[in-house]
């Protein structure tokens, strides 16, 4: 069955009649299950363009649906619903509502790049997954994923200091995602880390926590990077027509 017809045989699209007579012929039994007639009219014709306007999604138009990405996918092996090939198909066809059914798992791409390695068309499916999860968040279909929170905490620190101090990043990430830091496995890990009395390492980490490591003279680089990021965000908001989305939402609320 072609990948795009899969959705037709979902339980909600099927009707089974106990007894059915069509044109005078009794078709009860094996022949009584029918796919509901439906008309798809909620195409988002600019969906492909919108994804292509976000970093990583630029090459989506090159896909010819060979399925090498899904076939090689790390996450697909543990969750068969994680299907990059299918999502790329839906995006190119503009089938937004069908794509939204999987909105909560798309961010789970682990960026192992097996798909990009396997892709014969240089679609960079890994980038398309990132672009799609950004699109879902920017359009307000999903809240920020834990992964996005992590990326933001990490990037903020680099823009500010030029370097990463791990414990600070981890603490901020746990705080921002409202998770408890003292989880049993985390405590066990720290215990085992202390076992070998790594004095040098602990001193180093302790100092790094007190005085965050930074690249000296980073100020001008920091400002240049932040300016560029802001510029890009503005461009993306324009490509995704976010201003209008906000306007419509305001009108809805007012009405």
């Amino acid at each position, binding site marked *: 069955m072609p990948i795009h017809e899969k959705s037709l045989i979902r339980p909600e699209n099927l009707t089974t009649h106990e007894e059915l007579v069509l044109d005078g012929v009794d078709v009860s039994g094996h022949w009584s299950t029918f796919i509901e007639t439906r008309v798809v009219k909620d195409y988002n014709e600019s969906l492909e363009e919108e994804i292509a306007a976000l*970093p990583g999604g630029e090459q989506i138009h090159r896909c010819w649906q060979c399925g090498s990405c899904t076939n090689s996918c*790390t*996450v697909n092996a*543990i969750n068969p619903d994680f299907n990059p090939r299918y999502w790329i198909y839906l995006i190119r066809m503009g089938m937004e509502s069908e794509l939204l059914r999987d909105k909560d798992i798309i961010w*789970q791409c*682990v*960026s*192992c*790049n*097996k798909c*990009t*390695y396997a892709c014969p068309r240089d679609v*960079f499916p890994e980038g398309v997954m*990132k672009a799609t999860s950004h699109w879902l968040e920017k359009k307000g279909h999903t809240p920020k*994923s*834990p*992964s*996005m*929170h*992590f*990326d*933001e905490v*990490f*990037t903020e620190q*680099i823009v500010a200091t*030029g*370097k*990463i*101090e*791990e*414990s600070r990043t*981890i603490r901020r*990430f*746990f705080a921002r995602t409202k998770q408890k830091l003292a989880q*049993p*496995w985390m405590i*066990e*890990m720290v215990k*085992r880390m202390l*076992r*070998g*009395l*790594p004095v040098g*390492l602990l001193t*180093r*980490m302790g100092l*790094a926590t007190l005085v965050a*490591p930074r*690249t*000296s*003279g*980073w100020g*001008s*680089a920091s*400002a*240049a*990077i932040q*300016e*560029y*990021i802001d510029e890009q965000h503005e461009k993306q908001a324009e490509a995704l027509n976010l201003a209008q989305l906000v306007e419509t939402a305001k009108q809805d609320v007012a009405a």
Partner: protein
Amino acid sequence: MSLPDKVSLTMTTKDKYKKVAYYPGCALEGSGHSYNRSTKAVGKALGLDLVEVKNWNCCGAMEVKNIDPKIQTYLSSRVMSTTVNEMDMDVVMAPCNGCYHNLKKAEYDLANDDESVAVVDRLSKKAGHKTYESGQVETIHALDWIKDAIGEDGLKSRVKNSLSGMKIANYYGCMYTRPRHIFPEKDQGPGSESTSKPHFMDDLLAAAGAENVDFPLKTACCGGAHTLSDSDTSTKLVLNILKTAKMCGAEVIATECPTCHSGLEMHQIRAEKTLGEKVDIKILYFTQLLGMALGLKPRKVGVHENINDSIGFLKEKGLG
């Protein structure tokens, strides 16, 4: 790409890698400190010079790339710009797979994408340093460094404590080989590294006397990108790697990336605590194993800084 100058034409790779710029990166200053320690110790024991990149910054890692790939390209290019313009060196060695990958990716982008060149030029000018141009610096991994500068034969003649009788699964991870296009020197026939079946780590550890097991998950993913943001997925992926290595007969998993290494260590514990699955296998950086084979004490190569406890095991093998 600029033509190689006369000096590098007459220099063999062996000479060229004897003294390289060293880019440890953020992880090696923290959780991957034992990798930093062991890389330096091995370099010293082999008579190779590492000159740390001056005032380096983060390569951008996966996280900045996710926010904006061109910022990651800029961050990596700044490291290479410092190497060539402020240190006058043309080889930079990064032991961390993430840093190595990102520098390679920046090199590729700057050689092939005009927009990346323009963004890097703009940011470099605003930041007040020279713009890096593709072809000025060669980025290598710690594996390339030892393999080319010393080689298997050179290593064999320096081994003091053979790793004989130690069964090792070599784990390379994702970033060292994928995607293929950023590693033009790989897959170039005999002697070069393979992106589908990498073997440089196998070669070096075999030269140190170890017995490498046939391990099918050499380049599998440990879920390092989501080690904290989607821990259940990472635990599943790591558990699969640990169990497979064990089934292949390995006693040790040798690693070459701080994210993989700490991911394996963390999720080995997490699998034990949340899924009740305990897999007893040792996890060591390949530089730690090489260092001990060269006669260094476990503490010298930071074995006590690993979370996974292998001290008793190493004593049993006569390396403690």
